[in-house]
């Protein structure tokens, strides 16, 4: 029922629906307050027993009133009605029921409650074992749960960001506002974050004065002052949910819950806040009392009831009973009475009786007192005292300590570095004390980093005032008394866990699921310990407590991912000829971060093999062009460049003449092959080293390590030029003809022989030309500054139109290198040696190099070791499969009989059959033999013949032509 007053804006009515029925609220309402204002008291069903549940609190601690917001792909389950600001068009629906909310068919679970106690899953569904995953678990999950995901992609967008500050004030209640005000005055860069849309905390919920004015007005004025300060950043609706290493705090800012707006801008921002100091002013959460049937809609926390009356101008009920702490009860009675409620009972310590049970089918209708009386009421406001919100203090494993004076846990001493706790979060509950404590905490926190000296660091801080009369945790009664409302854990479950030996709080938590719901036990953990302590006559502190972990409130997975989803999960690199390839409708393949053209399909080609075969044939018979920019390129300069390269390459580079290129092999320290590539000498002290695409970064890192750590005295420098040069392979018997139309350098075999290199003028652009070949054909690689790359690619095709110049992609590149017998990633896999690859003679014995010593280990130089050889199927119609293992004909497929494996296969359009490369024990001695290729994964076996790995032009006539 709506009453006068409050902090809502009655000039801005808002329409919303709940379970399809339309209602009206006001700007400033939460969904919970608007529902209460419209008389909606039943909002959901409980997790396990499907009991009717209503709104229990007015904050993020809410365990009951969880609903689904939005529809279709927008729907978000398990949303707390108490934290969602009302917006126009909001649609909400209740969850976890079969049939209507009012007549939930699953409510029969409640009748079976005596069988569904703690641990019943583990005891009941033991046999047969295989039924657990297939039958029992799906059944249980359908019967008990929360809301449901849509199953569609989340259309909401999420952002991510980084903030820095001198001091992060967590919580914008009186303590936080005071701390922020003081810190700002000291010149610190301040971030003040609060999960609520309004700063002020309890000041917006209570009718008390602060510094001579109404609390909410003081909060508003202080907020306004802070907002105008340049060194303060106010972050409403921002929950600091985790304290991480090195002063980093995770925070979630909610910008909107409205899906209409969520398409225009991000809905939430996940901030990583780097804070030099943190003042934790997270306040306190009211706790409940365990008594029979304390879960009915209409039973709520007294502080929540006051919030609804004072802030939202909503009476939670007309006839209100109040139970619990004396001072809270009196304040609640006064506020609700002032708002128009009838106070039918105030059950404080002075009362003659207390609550023994409650009644009401879907909502509270009456309470039964211990003396037998029955009091008709529609609301019971309960206050069992206040628990400091200390969750963030435990995120670095600091253990809370029990404080008998406030009857609750307070932060331990081993707090996250730079954190100070102030106000109610450390047990200081009086508002005036909170203001003083916030200011003192700010001064103390900033004493060594504040800009405006002097800082009065040791300002006295208010002491924790003892609670005069402690409220019992549990009341006697015969019905079930709920401790954890969200996970349906009762006091009986706790005692049962204890009786069965789960005495440790950690064990009890897992056995009963206490505190393991999305509310993280905000209203249940402390209550459970107090219930047990009261029953066993021990202090809750002696029972211990579990440690809170991040996040403080649930965070959508989408918020963690932020913009990094779908194609934005990681960045992609585009080759210089990407635009041309796109225009040619190339099929792209990801190679690392690069997007490379895999093949260029032409009209009429319906299978990738048709395109690739055509590209290979065109290259071998005419000229093909491929973008090979992705290979790593490193400029090595300096007086010691030659000596440096001799040290990092297995073969010698210092003897390389200027204008010549040499194939190079790098070893790791352990003697295995690290990478291969070419090394071109452009000047006496200037080499260009190329690497494989996959190892471009790791080779550069390796070279820098050698330069800086192993050879720091060398005059040598490394510059990565991978990005600076666009490089294209121009391969095929007509490649010289084509390039000669582009450059005015004499490209004859005599003037520019195989492995020559040098600068060239490419239509007025300074370029580089290398006569090197990966395909085995007469071939060149031509390089121009990157931004000319796309134009050059097109120009090459234009100039070579009459030569049938053809672009080819990585697939044809791979086919041709297998035909030629060149090793690539499948062979250079980190487990092969130079000898394995047939390159043993490249490891020079005349000089030292990285990996030289360990490459000579006996196992690595065995004569009968693995050797790279070629394979063809004896049945030419069959296809070879990569990964197949070689066995002697008729041998069993065992490790002992394993002779090696097939590393790369391709269909060779040149030979008209499938070919493969692979490693075979003593392979070079077995050419011509027939073996069995056994592929366990594909379930195939076939006979293969061992051949030379050089299927095409084995004597190199073509590439030297």
């Amino acid at each position, binding site marked *: 029922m709506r009453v006068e007053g409050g902090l809502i804006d009655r000039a801005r009515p808002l329409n919303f629906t709940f379970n399809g029925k339309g209602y009206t609220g006001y700007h400033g309402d939460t969904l919970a307050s608007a529902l209460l204002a419209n008389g909606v008291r039943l909002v959901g069903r409980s997790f396990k027993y499907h009991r009717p549940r209503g709104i229990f609190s007015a904050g993020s601690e809410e365990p009951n009133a969880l609903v689904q917001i939005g529809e279709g792909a927008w729907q978000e389950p398990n949303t707390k009605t108490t934290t969602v600001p009302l917006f126009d068009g909001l649609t909400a629906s209740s969850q976890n029921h079969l049939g209507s909310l009012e007549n939930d068919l699953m409510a029969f679970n409640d009748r079976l409650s005596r069988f569904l106690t703690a641990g019943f899953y583990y005891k009941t569904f033991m046999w047969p074992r295989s039924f657990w995953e297939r039958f029992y678990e799906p059944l249980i999950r359908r019967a008990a749960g929360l809301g449901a995901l849509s199953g569609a992609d989340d259309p909401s967008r999420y952002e991510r*960001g980084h903030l820095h500050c001198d001091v992060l004030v967590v919580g914008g209640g009186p303590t936080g506002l005071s701390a922020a005000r003081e810190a700002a005055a000291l010149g610190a860069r301040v971030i003040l974050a609060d999960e609520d849309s309004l700063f002020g905390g309890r000041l917006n919920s209570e009718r008390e004065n602060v510094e001579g004015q109404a609390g909410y007005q003081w909060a508003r004025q202080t907020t306004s002052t802070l907002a105008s300060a340049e060194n303060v950043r106010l972050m409403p609706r921002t929950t600091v949910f985790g304290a991480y290493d090195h002063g980093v705090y995770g925070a979630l800012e909610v910008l909107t819950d409205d899906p209409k707006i969520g398409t225009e801008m991000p809905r939430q921002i996940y901030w990583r806040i780097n804070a030099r100091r943190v003042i934790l002013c997270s306040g306190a959460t009211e706790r409940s009392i365990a008594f029979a049937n304390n879960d009915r809609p209409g039973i709520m926390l007294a502080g929540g009831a006051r919030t609804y009356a004072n802030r939202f101008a909503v009476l939670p009920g007309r006839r209100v009973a109040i139970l619990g702490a004396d001072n809270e009860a009196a304040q609640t009675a006064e506020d609700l009475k002032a708002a128009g409620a009838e106070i039918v009972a105030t059950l404080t310590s002075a009362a003659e009786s207390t609550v023994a049970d409650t009644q009401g089918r879907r909502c509270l209708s009456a309470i039964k007192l211990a003396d037998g009386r029955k009091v008709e009421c529609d609301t019971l406001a309960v206050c069992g005292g206040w628990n400091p919100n200390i969750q963030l203090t435990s995120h670095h494993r600091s253990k809370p300590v029990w404080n008998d004076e406030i009857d609750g846990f307070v932060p331990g001493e081993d707090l996250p570095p730079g954190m100070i706790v102030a106000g109610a979060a450390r047990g200081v509950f009086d508002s005036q004390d909170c203001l003083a404590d916030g200011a003192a905490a700010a001064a103390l926190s900033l004493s060594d980093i504040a800009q405006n000296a002097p800082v009065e660091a040791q300002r006295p801080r208010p002491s924790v005032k003892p609670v005069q009369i402690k409220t019992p945790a549990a009341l006697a009664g015969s019905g079930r008394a709920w401790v954890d409302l969200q996970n349906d854990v009762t006091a009986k479950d706790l005692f049962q866990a204890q009786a069965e030996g789960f005495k440790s709080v950690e064990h009890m938590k897992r056995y009963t699921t206490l505190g393991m719901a999305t509310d993280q036990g905000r209203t249940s953990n402390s209550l459970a310990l107090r219930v047990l302590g009261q029953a066993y006559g021990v202090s809750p502190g002696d029972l211990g407590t579990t440690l809170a972990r991040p996040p403080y409130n649930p965070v959508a997975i989408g918020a963690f991912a932020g913009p990094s989803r779908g194609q934005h999960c990681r960045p992609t690199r585009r080759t210089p000829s990407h635009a041309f390839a796109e225009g040619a409708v190339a099929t792209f393949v990801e190679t690392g971060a690069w997007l490379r053209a895999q093949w260029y399909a032409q009209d009429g080609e319906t299978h990738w093999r048709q395109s690739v075969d055509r590209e290979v044939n065109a290259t071998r018979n005419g000229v093909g062009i491929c973008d090979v920019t992705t290979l790593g390129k490193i400029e090595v300069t*300096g007086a010691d460049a030659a000596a440096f390269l001799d040290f990092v390459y297995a073969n010698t580079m210092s003897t390389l003449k200027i204008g010549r290129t040499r194939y190079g092999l790098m070893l790791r320290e352990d003697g295995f092959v690290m990478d291969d590539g070419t090394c071109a000498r452009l000047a006496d002290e200037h080499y260009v080293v190329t690497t494989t695409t996959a190892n471009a970064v790791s080779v550069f890192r390796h070279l820098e390590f050698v330069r800086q750590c192993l050879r720091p005295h060398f005059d040598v420098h490394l510059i990565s030029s991978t990005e600076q040069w666009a490089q294209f392979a121009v391969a095929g018997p007509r490649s010289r003809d084509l390039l000669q139309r582009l450059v005015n350098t004499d490209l004859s075999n005599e003037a520019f022989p195989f492995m020559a290199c040098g600068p060239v003028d490419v239509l007025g*652009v300074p370029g580089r030309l290398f006569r090197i070949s990966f395909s085995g054909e007469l071939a060149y690689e031509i390089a121009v500054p990157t931004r000319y790359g796309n134009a050059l690619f097109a120009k090459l095709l234009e100039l070579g139109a009459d030569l049938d110049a053809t672009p080819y992609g990585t697939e044809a590149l791979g086919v041709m290198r297998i035909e030629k017998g060149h090793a690539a990633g499948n062979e250079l896999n980190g487990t092969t040696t130079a000898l394995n690859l047939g390159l043993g003679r490249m490891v020079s014995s005349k000089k030292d190099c990285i990996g030289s010593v360990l490459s000579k280990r006996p196992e690595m130089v065995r004569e009968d070791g693995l050797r790279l050889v070629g394979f063809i199927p004896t049945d030419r119609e069959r296809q070879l499969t990569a990964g197949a293992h070689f066995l002697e004909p008729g041998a069993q497929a065992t490790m002992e009989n394993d002779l090696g494996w097939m590393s790369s296969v391709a269909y060779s359009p040149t030979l008209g059959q499938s070919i493969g490369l692979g490693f075979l024990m003593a392979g070079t001695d077995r050419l011509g033999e027939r073996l069995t290729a056994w592929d366990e994964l594909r379930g195939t076996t076939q006979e293969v013949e061992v051949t030379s790995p050089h299927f095409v032009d084995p004597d190199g006539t073509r590439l030297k032509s």
Partner: protein
Amino acid sequence: MTDLSHLQLDMSSADLLCDTPGLRVSLETADCLWACPLIGMEQSDPNLPAVGHTKERNGSHMLRLQRDTLYVVGDTTNVPEVSSNAHDQSHAWNSVNISGEMTPALMERLCMLDVTGPGFPPGRISRTLMDHTGVIAWHINNAEFKLFVATSYTSSLVERVRQCAKDLLALHDFHERASSTH
């Protein structure tokens, strides 16, 4: 030689990604960017900027990203100490230029640098990450940054920056609407 016409650059010299009163974002080629190894030099030479700092000399900017390399933007002859070792990197990088009063808000969404505080004041330069893309961030003036991004990664970064700028402007409008309604 059948055609002596010059090849065409595949990017115009400047591409405006966002142009509003509060935020201007443009993409440019990183013309005249040179990597200059400090070979055989005293690396703590006071005439050179310290690591992480920049200095201007006769219109050329010296960017010191690491101990043994100086990047020069502009004419290297203004930095004779390194001009003989300069490697052209103009095609290796593009630059995203961000200016306007909303620059800090955009930058704090893109990278982890302390763009409004003492951690990364004007005149500083740093290698950093924007999401997963490596960039060199140069804080030129208050609310003005230049981000060098490797050419191959440019489209990824531009897409991210453009979307982020769009979101920021939408958020700005959202707040404006909310305050005017209020």
